[in-house]
Each structure stands twice: as C-alpha cells, then as structure tokens.
C-alpha cells in the first residue's frame, strides 16, 4: 500500500497526462498554454482525427496565444470554438456535453480553474469519470470559495487573498471541493482584524 504523500492535498484531484483513446467522438477543452497540449498530441495523431472532434479553447492572453490559435485553426477541426473566458465558454461546453453520444471522450488541459469548472460541468451532464482526462498546464492560480459569504474569487495567486465579494481577508486552505471546483478560503484575521498579514505571491 502506498503511503500518502505529505505534499499532496488529499481532497484535490490528481491530474495526469492526456492520452487519446479509441472513442466515437473527442471533446478537447483547454485554456492558454493548455492549447499547446492539443498541438503536441496532434503531431502523433492521424490527419483526419479532428474531423470527429470538438475543440473549445479559452484565450485569456491574446498577445501571447496567437501561435497556439494559428496551430489549432490549422488542425482542420470543424467544430473549433475560441472564447475569451472560462465563464463565456461554459454554456457552449454544457450544450456540447448534453448532446454527447455514448462513447465520447473528454480531454481537459490548462489552469486548475478550467479543469475544475469543466469537470464540474461534465459531472452535471452525467459524464462517467472514466470518460474524462485532465492535464494541468500553465497558471497555478486558484479558484477560491469564501466560506463566509460563499462567493467565488477567480485567479487567486496570493496567500492570503481578498474575497472579491465580502472583502474579508482569506487564508486559502489546502482543501478542495470538486462540487464547487474551488479551494476553501477562511478569514485569516478573525481573531484580530487589525492584524493584517502581508500577501505573498505563491500560486502564480
């Protein structure tokens, strides 16, 4: 039996490496440098592979992602979507997953926010765990749910961090909920609100 790794967060999903499998249809969802995963996979796939696929790509950094976008457009995938944010892409993903046929494989690559939110959407659509692969690329920024007001703050790179909703200063716990696709944030200075610890960039 393997011993738990001290550095692992037990409530957090383990991410792997994408590896295309036999399937009736393939759905790729990626953001920013996660798009490079699709391009490098494409090099060892048959030319017509993407005829039977859909690509949903989120580009939050248009200056630096142009070569990825050019590469994706060159794959000849008839259903290529490029959107500006995860939130903007989710309705499209939801519709695609709802209409999914049996034997569809879903591949996610990118930030933890993308992986979490796309996984949540796939679970809501009733996708089997085995039909989903994940690979973590790019930003370590966390999606954080404030335990007090329940609001979600995106792209958290510091410890502690401000809640975008209620303004409390949050300690980002190493505790992750798949259902919320978020880490838990708990007020760090509740005992003494005048004690304001400095923020450190640790999740960038």
């Amino acid at each position, binding site marked *: 039996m393997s011993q738990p790794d001290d550095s692992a967060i037990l409530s957090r999903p383990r991410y792997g490496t994408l590896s295309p499998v036999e399937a009736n249809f393939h759905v790729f969802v990626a953001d920013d440098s996660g798009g490079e995963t699709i391009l490098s996979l494409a090099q060892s796939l048959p030319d017509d592979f993407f005829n039977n696929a859909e690509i949903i790509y989120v580009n939050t950094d248009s200056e630096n992602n142009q070569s990825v976008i050019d590469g994706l457009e060159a794959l000849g995938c008839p259903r290529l979507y490029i959107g500006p944010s995860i939130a903007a892409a989710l309705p499209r993903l939801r519709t695609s997953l709802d209409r999914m046929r049996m034997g569809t494989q879903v591949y996610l690559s990118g930030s933890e926010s993308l992986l979490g939110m796309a996984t949540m959407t796939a679970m809501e659509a009733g996708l089997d765990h085995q039909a989903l692969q994940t690979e973590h690329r790019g930003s370590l920024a966390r999606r954080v749910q404030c335990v007090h007001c329940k609001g979600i703050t995106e792209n958290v790179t510091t410890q502690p961090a401000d809640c975008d909703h209620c303004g409390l200063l949050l300690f980002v716990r190493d505790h992750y909920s798949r259902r919320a696709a978020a880490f*838990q944030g708990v007020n760090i200075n509740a005992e003494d609100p005048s004690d304001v610890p400095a923020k450190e960039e640790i999740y960038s």
Partner: protein
Amino acid sequence: MATSAKDLPFREETFRDDFTFKNSPETVLRAPFPFDKDSYMYAVNMELHRDGRPGTAYEAPIDVDEHYVSEMKDRALVLDEDPLRYQSLPHMTLAGWDTLELLMTCKAETYPEWFSLTRDGDNWHWVNRPMGIDQHFVFGDESTLPYAPLEYITRQAQGDFCVLDERDGNLWMDAGMVTTQADWSLDFDIGMNFFEWHAPVPLAHEKGIFKRALKYLLSIQQGNPARRLNWTMTVNPRLDTSPENYHIWGPENTHITPENVADKLFLRIELQSFWRLPRSNALLFPIRCYFLSMRDLSTVPKWATRMHRVLQTLPPEIASYKGLDNYREIAINWLSQFDDGKPTSEGPHPD
C-alpha cells in the same frame, strides 16, 4: 446513586449572545470524558456502542439530556440564518427515511415518557412531548411531513448528523444536518469521500489513521453501532462554531484571561456514533456535543488533573489545528492547582 437524565427538567438557556448555558452537577458527572490516560494522540479509538451504565451519556443509544429543548431552539435559529447547514443530495432520500425511523424508534423505546411512535402499516403517529409536536404522517411520503425526513427528525435530535453513502469501497458525505460543528463546513464538504473531507487534519493521514478508520466503518453491520470520542475546546458554550461564522466568533478566542478561564473556556466533547441503515445501506454518523467548563471539570479531581496533563503534553500541530494557541497556557496554569502530581487511575471514569 446515579441520576438518570430523565430525572432532570429541561433547562431554558442560550448558546449565543448572553450564553446562559449551564450544566447541573448530575450532567457534569454523566459527560463522556474523552481522555482515558494523561496524554492525547490521534487513534482509531472505536468501540461498540452498547447500552452503558445508568448515569452516563451511554445509558441510551441516542442520548437526550437537560439541554435538549434549548439546543433544538438554537438549531432552528441557525437554520433560519443559513439554510445551507442542512443538505441532502438527491439519491439520499431513502437514507433520510432510515434515519427518521431509527431516531424515532430509539427515542420512543428509551424515553417513553417523552416520545411515542405508533405504527399502522405506513401510517405513523409521532409524539414529541418536550417539543410539543404531534405528527401523523405516511412513512415514505415526503408530502405528509413539513420538511424532508432527514431535516424533520434532526430538528428534533441533539447533535449533528452526517449521512454517508457507501460505494466504491469508500464513504461519501452526501447528506447532513450540521449546526453544532467544530469548524468544518457541510456546504463545502458535501459530496466528498472519507479521505477528502479529512484532508485538512494534520498528522493523522501519515499515521494511517483514516485508512484503518474507514476499514472499520465499512465493516459496521445493522444492529451493531460503534462509537468514538473526539474533542476540542471552545470559548463560551457556543454550539455554532462554524467556519461560516468564524469571523463573528473568532474574536472570542482572544477573550480568555486568568480571571475568566474557569467559566468561559469549555472542553467540547464529541460523542460520534456510527449506525448502518437498513434500506439504503448508508451509515448514519451522529456527532453529539457536550460542553464542560473548566470549573465543571474541577468538580471531578481526576478529570481536572488529566485535562491539565493532556494540555501540557499536546503536540503543537494538534493544539494549533484545534485552535487552542490563544488560551492553552492560561488553562494549564488554572488547572495546575488541581494536579497533585500523583498517578491517575485507569480509564476515563471519575474515581
């Protein structure tokens, strides 16, 4: 002679604002003191949950004591403020009916002067005299109760209740009523498996505690419930020490002084029990909270001595995780007057 909980009137008291909660001397003596020796470390301290001695918290399978009615009022206040403290995923309704049946039959059998249950097929009649409830309903028909079955019955039962679904060799936190928790959030943890919801606990994973505990829990059979004790400390007798409200109660952690420690600092004991449910095969996991102030402890010399030694030798990671750092030294100093340095007798019970 041991006094039964049934001999005491229900207290009118509060667990917030003016904090009028108080234990009678009989209730102090029947508390399930959690330390069976003079030091503490995590352990899989499971044992069978069998009817215990009269005059202990184990005398009934589901304990009802003098705090019952006031605790239920506090739960109703919490649910008005934050309805997310009760949640049940859609596949857990059957386990909710199982829970309702278990709690009603246990209570009616052990406390017939307070509760009665009359069954005619699926037509049930439930009477809860302390809370003034008289309810006819059809077992299995949610439309005949004012709440879903799990919410209905756990608004009438002391302690938090988690309902764990069993699948893939794991237990999943898929329903619960959690208003008296020691700093964990049902809303965040719902849907997690056993290892996931325990992720923030220090040291115990490395010691393999949770793997062994899960194995034990999965082996629990209907009719053979098990139990264990856990503990922490709380400033003021506040049942709702939720993370949701931590920014509200957190400042109280700094309010302990040598002058007020005896009456303002409480040992918070959790009596956790585990019951296999018959129809759903889920596990019901009640977590019942008992408060003993430092002054309550001092009325039992062995307990004050032992609390003193446990706090002195507690590993710092555990003390921090339990949130004791602000007042641990003050408590040690106050309790030292009861510690004569001599060995204590074995087991948790008073001498």
